[in-house]
């Protein structure tokens, strides 16, 4: 949908002159010391697929706001291409297009939400929301109809005729969001949209954004300095440091497998339970960790090395046929079914266990532990036994953000 190729922004009197230094791989600090030029963004490349939420994460000064402004050329990139996949005109390079084309692209394909809202203080809420439509040249009746529809969507129906200064911060950013989606642009650039809000409102707005995103399915480029926020809403995350993208991946990849010191430091304090999946933490079902003790009724009977009281009966297809604890049959339940059960203090069963799929997040597995003392069984989508998660795996997963298997 949108793709950045080697986008670079150099601030200073003669930006082109630092190209050789950049190609030599000199760092931002070196270039600044040598030439006085500031490298805002250094050779950033990434691709955002249609309908995807792509987060760019970094601390202040890492160049993330500069990068997002290069995408719609609020800041002119010094080098690089920004390829937009326009359904009507094919692939367009935003970096080199002329003024009128750029304005058309901004008005029809790219819209933006700002950190400090940037609502026009002299316009009412409704005229703020329809600003982009006004620029597109739609007629008044159509504008207002769409404007009201999107105000309704962000939960501000009835506030049309108020002015922005009469609204709280959270409400102002809802207007900002409505203004951005109202143009029906398929790409949404969001520059730290929730950073200026207090923590509770922030989480509320993230939920709101995800709800709206489910409804509209836009392509979102989301800038943030908050890793938990990126993990919550991002399908993919790019981490920036000193103008460079140091790692791109989905939240779990970043958390489990940080590529640099910098990323590792970042993820150190992140809450892994919402990101890491059962597959990562589970002790894999291989003969390295399990022993086959006998065969019984056509099934292989396995126990985990060191834990002989629980038996796993596996049929020829690799499915778990039965599970036994100290000789008694164990009832197997769907994790989803058990964690959604409500009422009463939980009674931890020793005669029942839960099973989940490989992509279940750690948080839900933990809830499953409250139901049963026996290991959680992890299966793939075909129902084959992939591994088990017991207390040690959970603890290790939360503390080390990885499974035992990855330690070796």
């Amino acid at each position, binding site marked *: 949908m949108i793709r950045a190729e080697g986008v670079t922004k150099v601030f200073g009197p003669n930006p082109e002159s630092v190209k050789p230094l950049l190609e030599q791989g000199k760092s931002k600090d070196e270039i600044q010391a040598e030439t006085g030029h500031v490298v805002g963004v250094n050779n950033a490349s990434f691709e955002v697929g249609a309908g995807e939420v792509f987060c760019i994460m970094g601390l202040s000064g890492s160049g993330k706001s500069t990068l997002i402004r290069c995408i*719609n050329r*609020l800041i002119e990139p010094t080098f690089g291409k920004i390829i937009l996949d326009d359904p009507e005109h094919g692939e367009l390079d935003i970096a080199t297009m002329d003024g009128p084309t750029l*304005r*058309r*692209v*901004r*008005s*029809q394909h*790219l*819209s*933006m939400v*700002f950190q*400090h809202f*940037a*609502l*026009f*203080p*002299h*316009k009412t809420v409704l005229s703020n929301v329809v*600003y*982009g439509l*006004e*620029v*597109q040249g739609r007629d008044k009746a159509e504008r207002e109809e769409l404007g009201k529809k999107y105000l309704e969507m962000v939960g501000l129906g009835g506030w049309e005729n108020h*002015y*922005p*200064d009469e609204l709280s911060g959270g409400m102002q950013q809802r207007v900002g969001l409505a*203004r951005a989606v109202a*143009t029906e642009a398929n790409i949404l*650039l969001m520059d730290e949209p929730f950073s200026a809000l207090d923590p509770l409102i922030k989480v509320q707005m993230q939920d709101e954004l995800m709800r709206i995103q489910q409804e509209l399915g836009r392509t979102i480029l989301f800038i943030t300095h908050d890793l938990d926020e990126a993990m919550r809403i991002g399908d993919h995350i790019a981490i920036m440091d000193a103008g460079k993208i140091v790692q791109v991946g989905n939240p779990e990849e970043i958390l489990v497998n940080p590529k640099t010191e910098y990323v590792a430091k970042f993820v150190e304090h992140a809450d892994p339970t919402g990101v890491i999946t059962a597959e990562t933490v589970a002790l894999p079902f291989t003969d390295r960790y399990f022993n086959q003790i006998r065969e019984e009724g056509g099934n292989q009977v396995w126990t985990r090395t060191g834990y002989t009281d629980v038996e796993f009966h596996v049929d020829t297809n690799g499915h778990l046929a039965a599970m036994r604890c100290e000789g008694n049959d164990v009832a197997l339940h769907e994790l989803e079914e058990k964690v959604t059960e409500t009422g009463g203090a939980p009674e931890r069963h020793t005669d029942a266990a839960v099973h989940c799929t490989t992509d279940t997040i750690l948080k839900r597995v933990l809830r499953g532990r409250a139901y049963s003392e026996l290991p959680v069984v992890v299966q793939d989508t075909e129902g084959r036994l992939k591994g088990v998660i017991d207390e040690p795996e959970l603890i290790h997963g939360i503390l080390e953000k990885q499974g035992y298997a990855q330690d070796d």
Partner: protein
Amino acid sequence: MNDLIPMLGGSLGNPFELIDMPIDDWVTWFVDWLVDTFRDFFRTWVSPPVKTVMEGVQWLLTSTPPLAVLAGLFVLAWRAASWKVGVFAVVAFAFIGFMGVWDELMTTLSLVITSVLFCLVIGVPIGILCSRRDMTYTLVRPILDIMQTTPPFVYLVPAVMLFSIGNVPGLIATIIFAMPPTIRLTNLGIRQVPGQYTEAATAFGSTPRQILWKVQVPLAMPTIMAGLNQTIMLALSMVVIAAIIGAGGLGLLVFQGLNRLDIGQAFVGGLGIVLLAMVLDRITQGLGEKAPGSRASSDD
């Protein structure tokens, strides 16, 4: 040797005797040339529009019955500022009327309205141009300094030579003198619009023209209104001076009063000007406070 010292001392001590720059002659020559060359141009192209507008406004104000003018004034002041300002304006105008100088008030008011109208029509676009490019403002600024600091008496004479006596040269002098605040504050107001608003407008694909008219000018409105207020005050301060070259109204009362040592008449004219100034000041201040752009200041 001894008799050289006083000689040298004379020219060394006072170098101004060595060089004589006849600026006065040059200016006389330049003004003569200007008047000879452009008198027809100014009388055919500059004078008529100013004169027509002035006469139109004056006709409107004098042919309307005073009570209707008072009613209109009240509504205007009430809408622009508040009902209190409306009451004050009506009382002030009525007071001037009861002093027996209503016609002079209307003449002065039409002089002010006409000159301010031209100040806005010329000054706001120049102010906008200045805000677009630093270079333009660098060029315009010294001209504004000259317009504001040259004593008006200096250009009254060439104005008379170009336009002959009457209301027109008075108006032209007033327009020149009163325009700088409009230009300066329009420029300032637009430059002071926070970057985040123009950035947002740009991000949504606005053309520079759309950014100017939909965002910058509305947000600059309170400052532009402050400029308008200053322009009106300066225009009123020129009313007496313009009377010297034949402009009528309250200024003429003051001027004649001074000439004839009729302190009473001069005072009546002066009091009228002060009251008119207060009314116009309150109304335009109200306009600035009510401009939608004034909400920007309460934003964080």
